[in-house]
C-alpha cells in the first residue's frame, strides 16, 4: 500500500482513498454508491442538490465536495440520512412540474430513478405547481423545458468546461432562480449544438433532443431493470 493512501470508514467498511479525492470519488472506487444528482463525472462538483449529504465525524457534508481525510468516520446508508435524501428528492419533485408518465426521459431519468431507489411512491410535500416555468423550443434540434429543470447546473458546467461555450448560466435568486441562455431570450440565438455535452448531461427531461423522443422501448430503458447506482455497486470487489 502506498504511503499516499488515506484510510477511512464508510458505514463501518474500511475504504481507501487518495489525497485530493472527494469522499464520493473514493466511495465510487470502492463500489459504495452515494446517491447524487448534481454531481457528474468529469465536471467540477457543484454541491447544490445536497442529496449526496453524508455525516462526517458527526457533521453533515456533501460528499461530492468534501475531501477524504485519514480516519474519518462517514455515515452514508443510515435511516437519518436516507430520510434527508427522500425529503430532498421530494422537494425537487414538488418544486417543478414533473410528469413522468409522459416524459421522454422516463426510464432514463436520474431523478425518477433515484425516487424509485429511495422508495418514494408519492412526494409527501404539496406540489407547488409553479406557473412561471417556460418552454424554449426555438432551436431546431434541442428544446428546454424549464418545468422539469432541477437546477443542478450540469449544463452550465458542461457548456463552460467541456464545450468551451458558456451557453447556460443561472439568473434570478431564490424561488425565481432559473437557467438562462447566453442570448437575450432564445436558445436558437446561442452557439449551442445538438452534439454538445451540455445537452447530453441533463439528468432529467429539461434539456432534450428533438426527433428522438421515446426511441427506446419500455423494458430497455436505462433504469428498467437495475436501480440507479447499480453500476457503481458492481465495482465492489
Amino acid at each position: 500500500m502506498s504511503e499516499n493512501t488515506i484510510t477511512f470508514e464508510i458505514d463501518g467498511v474500511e475504504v481507501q482513498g487518495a489525497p485530493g479525492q472527494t469522499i464520493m470519488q473514493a466511495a465510487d472506487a470502492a463500489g459504495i454508491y452515494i446517491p447524487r444528482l448534481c454531481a457528474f463525472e468529469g465536471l467540477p462538483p457543484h454541491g447544490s442538490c445536497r442529496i449526496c449529504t453524508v455525516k462526517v465525524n458527526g457533521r453533515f457534508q456533501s460528499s461530492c465536495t468534501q475531501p477524504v481525510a485519514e480516519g474519518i468516520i462517514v455515515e452514508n446508508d443510515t435511516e437519518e440520512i436516507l430520510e434527508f435524501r427522500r425529503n430532498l428528492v421530494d422537494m425537487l419533485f414538488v418544486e417543478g412540474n414533473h410528469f413522468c408518465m409522459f416524459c421522454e426521459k422516463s426510464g432514463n431519468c436520474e431523478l425518477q430513478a433515484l425516487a424509485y431507489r429511495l422508495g418514494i411512491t408519492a412526494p409527501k410535500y404539496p406540489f407547488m405547481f409553479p406557473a412561471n416555468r417556460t418552454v424554449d423550443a426555438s432551436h431546431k434540434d434541442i428544446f428546454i423545458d424549464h418545468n422539469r429543470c432541477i437546477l443542478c447546473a450540469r449544463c452550465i458546467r458542461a457548456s463552460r468546461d467541456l464545450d468551451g461555450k458558456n451557453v447556460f448560466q443561472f439568473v434570478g435568486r431564490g424561488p425565481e432562480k432559473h437557467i438562462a441562455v447566453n442570448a437575450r431570450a432564445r436558445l436558437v440565438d446561442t452557439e449551442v449544438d445538438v452534439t454538445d455535452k451540455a445537452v447530453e448531461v441533463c439528468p432529467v427531461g429539461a434539456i432534450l433532443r428533438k426527433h428522438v423522443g421515446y426511441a427506446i422501448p419500455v423494458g430497455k430503458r436505462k433504469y428498467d431493470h437495475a436501480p440507479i447506482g447499480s453500476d457503481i455497486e458492481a465495482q465492489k470487489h
Partner: protein
Amino acid sequence: MSENFETAIRSMCEGVGNDKARMMDIVREVQETFGCVSDDAMDLIADQVRTPRVEVESVVTFYAFLSKKQNGTVVFRLCDDIIDRMFGFERLKHAITEELGIDIGETTADGRFSLETTPCIGMCDQAPALMINDEIFTEVSRDTLLDYVEQLKAGITPERLRRRLGDGNNSNPLVSAAVSNNIRTRGEVIFAPLECGRALKKALSMSPNEVIRDIKTARLRGRGGAGFPTGMKWDFTRAARGERKFVICNADEGEPGTFKDRVILTERPELLIEGMAIAGYAIGAQEGIIYLRGEYAYLRPFLEDMLQKARNTGMLGKAIFGKQGFDFDIRIQMGAGAYVCGEETALISSCEGLRGDPKNRPPFPAQKGYHGYPTSVNNVETFCCVARILDQGAGWFSQIGSKGSTGTKLLSISGDCRRPGVYEVPFGIKLCEVLEMAGGNGAVAVQIGGPSGQMVGPKDYNRTICYDDLATGGAMMVFGPNRNLLEVVHYFMEFFVEESCGYCTPCRVGNALLKDRLERIMEGKGEPADLDYLEDLGVTVKSTSRCGLGQTSPNPILSTLKNFRPLYEQLVHEDQPFQATFDIQKALGEAKSIAGRPSMHFAE
C-alpha cells in the same frame, strides 16, 4: 440605442479597467445613471469586458437594487421588516401608494417615481424608515412622507430634501443623514476615547506572529455571530501560501434587527481602518476591502474621506508609519441588496463581480479566498476589538466579559422597549439586565441574533449573552404582550424565502414549504401532525443546506416550536375537514377559457 448611451456604458467599463471582476461597480453605476441595466446595456457591458452576456444578466438579476426593468428617477424603498411593520410600515405604504397612484413594484407613468419595499435597512431603532434613492429617512410619519413627495414633485432632489440631521457624524456634510446614532451605553472597547494610530504603531513594533499571539491571548472571537476565534483565522491565513493576501471587512450588516455596524462606521471608522491595517500586517496582506451593504451607500463618501485621511497620515499606503516593506491600502466594494452576501464566501463572490452565491468549502477563504488568494474576512466590530487589544493589551481585554467570551459586545436593541439603540455591554451580562437597561420590561419574547438566531421567552431571561449561552451577532428584537409572535415568525420565513440565493435544494425549496405550512396553521387549518411536519422539514433544511443561511433559516420555526409551543397547539385541530391543496377551478381556468366552456366534471 443612442451613441451617447453606448459611449457612456463603455466608459463606465473602462473606468474599472474593463475588468469583469469589477462587475458590481459597473452594473451599479449603470443602474444609478440609467435607472436600470437594460438588455442593451448588458450586451454592451458583455462586449466591453469580454464576458458572456448571460454572466452579466446573472449578476443583474441577483441583487435587489439592480433591475432590468426601467426604474423611476426617484426610487422609494420602504423598509419592510418586522420592527417597521410594528411601527407604521402599513400606514406609510398606504399613504404613498395612494399619493403616487402606484402599487409596490410599480413606476409612475411619467417615469419619475418607483415604489419598492426592502428588508431591514439597519434602522430598526428608529422605525419606520425608508430610502429615497441612496438617502435614508427615519422615524417617518405619514405627514413627513407626504411632505417629501411634495418636495420631490416640485423638483427637489432626494439629497436636498429638508430634514433634521442626526447626531455625531450623521451631521458631517459628507454624511448629512437624518439618522440617529442612539448610542445608549459606551463600553471600554468600541466607544471609549481613542488615540488614533497608537495601536497600529504598537503592532508594527512587534512581529506579525506576536500580533497574532496577542489576539489569541485576548481570546477574541468573531463579532458577526459565528464566533470563530480571530487569532486562529489569521494564523491559517498567514500560513497559507499565496502571492497576494487579502483582508476583507464584512460591513454587509444585513441580519434584520442589527444596526451596530452602522454606528461604528459612522462614529468609529478610524478604529476600523486601524484594525484592518493591523490585520494586514499580521497576515501579510497588502490589500483590504470593505464590503459595504448597498443600504449604507450614504456612508460611502464619508468613509472614502476617512480612508484618504488615513493615507495622508501614513496609516495606509506605502511603508506605513515608516515601516519598510509594509504596504497596505483599502478599497470599498459596494453591495447591492442581498442578505446572503453577509455569508463570507458569498461576500467574496460578490467582491469578485459574481452573483452572491456562497462557495463550496473546503477550501476555506483562509486557504483560497478572494480570487483564489488567502483571505481573512472579519466583522466590522472584530477589527475594532483588534485595534483596542493592540492598544490596551491582551490581558486588559481578556479581563472584560466572561471566560469563553472576552471583551464587550455591541447589541442592537429594537422593538417594544423604551430606549432602542446600541448598547456596548460586557459579555456575560444577563438578558434581563439588558432588557432593564433598554426599558423592555414586560417583553413576552426576545429574538436574539436576528431571524437566524432564536426566539426566547421569560423563562430564559436569566440566561447570559455570550458565545456559550445566548450567542448573538448583536440583534435583539423585543416583543411586548400585544404582538402576535407567529406573525413575527412568518415574517422571518418570508424573509428567508426572499433572500435565499437558491443555490441548494433544501434552502430554496424547504424554506418555501415551511412558510406555506406555517400559513396553513395560522389560518386555523392545521393539524397536530403539521407540527411534526415542520420539525422534520426544518431539521432537513438545517442539516443539509450548503451555507449558514439555510443552516439557520428554520430557526424561527424550530425555536418557537420549542419555546412557544402552545401558540401552535392552540391553532391546530384533529379531524380537519378535507382540505384541497390546490384550487381546481383556478387550475382549470386556462383550459376552460381555451375550450370556451366550463368543465363538465368539476362544476363550480
